[in-house]
């Protein structure tokens, strides 16, 4: 057992092992002061099963840890001839199941070595950092104390293409340093005549405690189970997860024999697992999978965050969001202009939340024209326009689980267009040129209409060009007005199917379309005024108004 701090916890755990009859050899880091080492040692004076081995300086990533485990193993194998399995543990390991169960488990598998051992050639076992280079470069500088020197030396060696030769017969393997080896395997490693050579090689390998035994065990072991009996989880930075009091149930359910790292102040964990009451004989195989899922989820959330959430501790740069918004939503441009009752119709058919123009100049038109919407979002114009993009992301985030639809148009605040364009969740349907319908039906002066039409047309064509650009990620459908009214039901059917209709059948009712008689003439008038409206498509113009006299009809011939 390797100990370097929190000696009181180590004492508890060591006592727990010896109480079950397991001899323990303790290695105490030479960094621990002599005074505290002496008190620690004296505390075990009455225990015949405890030995202390020579002390080494254990710095993370260096040879010291392997040296410590070698001294400890030699002492253990020499002093206790009955030992058949050796379990490597640390001061922050905690046995989760009664020691007797572990003894029985190992006794039933007398020839099996439990050591995680993975070839790096095939599998990315490491979390960031170096893999094969651990073996082929030299690491004379401490990573913890001389980070700059360490990094520079690595770079230098890469540039000079320095390669160390791996001793013959060794195939580099990596794995967790918390192993459990049989006497045969361990003594074969320790008594190998070539050991000085191997030791010399591993002395300059980076993090040798994760490769020394893992590599050598492959040479001698007859039966390797490549997994660790110690449960330990690593986060995205490759640091071990720490278990706290509230992980009690989780650890219980894992059925693992030993877990690390345990937070030294987790009194409840130590109390529970070191008391004999924990001994419910289950005889189950260790099932770290259950814990895996919990921690994999935590790690994923840490690295990716929740899509579409912008908060004080999650502020992705534009373009790096991993999901711009939280859920799919639909944007309709021109539909409310063409159909007089589009909103209620859509709400009825799809059951989705249908808003009016959320970005209308006068303020957001929430469904039912509420002043506030879910997530305390205010319809107030000033608040919306202060941060128009977060208005939409907030709305979608706060209404997760309910499809949002809203109307958009060239008269609205366009600041949100860029966001929708790069959002995979946006489903945008446009009837281009439909903005002309309300103009046509309004009762305004023609000069104003002409100016307004020119402005809207400019905005809409920009928006459409943006959506058609390569970078656009939104799902976009664009019809010209002329195209759309040729077979409106077919197109509406398509859209509603994508949102999901209430009943599986085809949409039966159609929304009411505005009366378009005379619309073609209206467009022609705009053209005649020099304003070419092109977004509507080719509208079958009514025959040009006639101003010549009707030709006399052919007289009918009555036979």
């Amino acid at each position, binding site marked *: 057992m390797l100990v370097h701090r929190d000696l009181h916890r180590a004492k508890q755990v060591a006592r727990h092992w010896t109480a079950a009859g397991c001899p323990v050899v303790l290695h105490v880091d030479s960094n621990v002061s002599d005074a505290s080492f002496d008190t620690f040692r004296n505390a075990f004076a009455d225990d015949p099963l405890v030995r202390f081995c020579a002390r080494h300086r254990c710095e993370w990533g260096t040879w010291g840890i392997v040296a410590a485990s070698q001294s400890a193993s030699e002492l253990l194998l020499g002093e206790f001839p009955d030992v058949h399995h050796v379990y490597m543990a640390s001061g922050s390991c905690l046995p989760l199941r009664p020691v007797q169960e572990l003894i029985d488990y190992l006794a039933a598998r007398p020839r099996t070595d439990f050591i995680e051992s993975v070839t790096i050639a095939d599998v990315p076992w490491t979390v960031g950092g170096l893999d094969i280079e651990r073996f082929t470069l030299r690491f004379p500088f401490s990573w913890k104390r001389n980070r700059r020197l360490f990094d520079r030396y690595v770079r230098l060696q890469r540039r000079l293409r320095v390669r160390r030769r791996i001793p013959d017969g060794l195939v580099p393997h990596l794995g967790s340093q918390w192993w459990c080896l049989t006497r045969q395997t361990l003594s074969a490693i320790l008594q190998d005549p070539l050991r000085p050579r191997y030791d010399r090689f591993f002395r300059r390998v980076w993090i040798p405690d994760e490769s020394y035994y893992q590599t050598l065990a492959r040479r001698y072991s007859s039966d390797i189970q490549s997994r660790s009996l110690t449960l330990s989880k690593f*986060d*995205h*930075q490759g*640091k071990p997860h*720490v278990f*706290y*009091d*509230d992980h009690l149930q989780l650890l219980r359910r894992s059925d693992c024999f030993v877990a690390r790292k345990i*937070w030294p*102040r987790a009194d409840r964990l130590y109390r529970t697992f070191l008391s004999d009451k924990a001994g419910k004989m289950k005889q189950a195989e260790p099932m770290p999978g259950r814990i895996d899922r919990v921690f994999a989820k*935590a*790690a994923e*959330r*840490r*690295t*990716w*965050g*929740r899509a579409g*959430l*912008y*908060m*004080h*501790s*999650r*502020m*992705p*740069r534009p373009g*790096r*969001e*991993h999901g711009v918004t939280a859920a799919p939503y639909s944007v309709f441009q021109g539909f409310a202009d063409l159909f007089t009752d589009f909103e209620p119709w859509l709400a009825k058919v799809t059951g989705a939340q249908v808003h009016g123009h959320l970005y209308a100049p006068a303020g957001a038109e929430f469904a039912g024209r509420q002043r*506030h*919407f*879910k*997530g*305390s*979002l*205010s319809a*107030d114009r*000033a*608040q919306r326009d*202060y*941060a128009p993009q*977060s*208005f939409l992301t*907030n709305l979608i*985030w*706060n209404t997760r689980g309910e499809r949002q639809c809203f109307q958009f148009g060239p008269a609205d605040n366009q600041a949100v267009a860029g966001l929708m364009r790069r959002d995979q969740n946006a489903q945008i349907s446009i009837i281009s040129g439909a903005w002309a319908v309300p103009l046509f039906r309004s009762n305004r002066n023609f000069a104003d209409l002409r100016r307004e039409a020119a402005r809207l047309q400019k905005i809409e064509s920009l928006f459409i060009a943006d959506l058609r650009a390569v970078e656009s990620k939104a799902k976009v459908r664009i019809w010209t007005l002329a195209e759309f009214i040729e077979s409106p039901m077919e197109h509406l059917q398509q859209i509603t199917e994508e949102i999901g209709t209430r009943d599986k059948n085809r949409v039966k009712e159609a929304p009411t379309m505005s009366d378009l008689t005379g619309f073609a003439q209206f467009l022609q008038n705009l053209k005649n005024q020099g304003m070419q409206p092109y977004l509507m498509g080719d509208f079958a113009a009514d025959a040009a108004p006639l101003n010549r006299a009707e030709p006399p009809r052919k007289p009918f011939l009555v036979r």
Partner: protein
Amino acid sequence: MRWKRRRLLWRSWRSRHQLRVLSDRSGKIATGDILAVSVMRNEIARLPFFLTHYRRLGVDHFLVVDNASDDGTAELLAEQPDVSVWQTDHSYRDARFGLDWLTWLQLRYAHGHWCLMVDADEMLIYADHDTRGLQDLTAWLQGQGRIAFGAMLLDLFPKGPLSGHVHTPGQDPTEVLDWFDPGPYRARRQRPMGNLWLQGGTRERVFLADSPHRAPTLNKLPLVCWNRKFAYVNSCHALLPPRLNAAYDGPGGDAPSGILLHSKFLPETVHRAAIEKERRQHFHDPRQFAAYYDQLSDDPDLWHPDARRLGDWRHLVELGLMSAGGW
């Protein structure tokens, strides 16, 4: 930025003359202790629970500046075994809203400690705060290489007029104020310090609807592994040197963060609004906020149908208001 930080530290150094010791137990501070610093004025109603809450989280020592209280706040503080109290009658506003005093105390006592800066009406919570103390949190943060922990100020309010409720001193304010706004909150980074600017929430919705740019700043960095060279710039919203403001990093992941439950809207705040309006000790430009105090004096009802009832921390994590950040 470096000169700005030096200037701030110099101001704080000078401000030490404004403080008068009332009870100094700072000798009890041991290495590794977690400290809390705070400025208070007439907080007798919130104080008992404030102390209970933070003691439960594992704060070992409180360093408090009492700004001329007349309701017994100072006396109560002086009786506590783990509180050191200083007193001053100088202007809160002139001391950069008390920051000069606190920076001095941090400079003097908090070097090398994890230090919490909170007001009497702010209660820090974070993921798993019911089972894991601040010692656990700070040790983990340090293991991750983080030396600052961010939190968002979340306004709590009651249902119905503010004065329609009863809060007895020592009572958990969240029993009275049990509603909050789940949104909208929006953030951006500010130059040149790289600090976050988070706005939105209740006070914007009710009081500043037509001028959202003046809405209160809600992000804070209350918990920092303090170094005597550090300086807060603007309450604890921004910190120098600038790299500390990157405690909220991005680019995509959820960094760990907490919530400061803000119990400003206790019943007493209604009559205090008139006093505060006269004192003009808050805000950079107090005149602009006269309307805010007037509205507050009218005993408004802050509740609305989209407000949520305060649950436990899991609810707040689920809503995306704070994050466990892989812990």
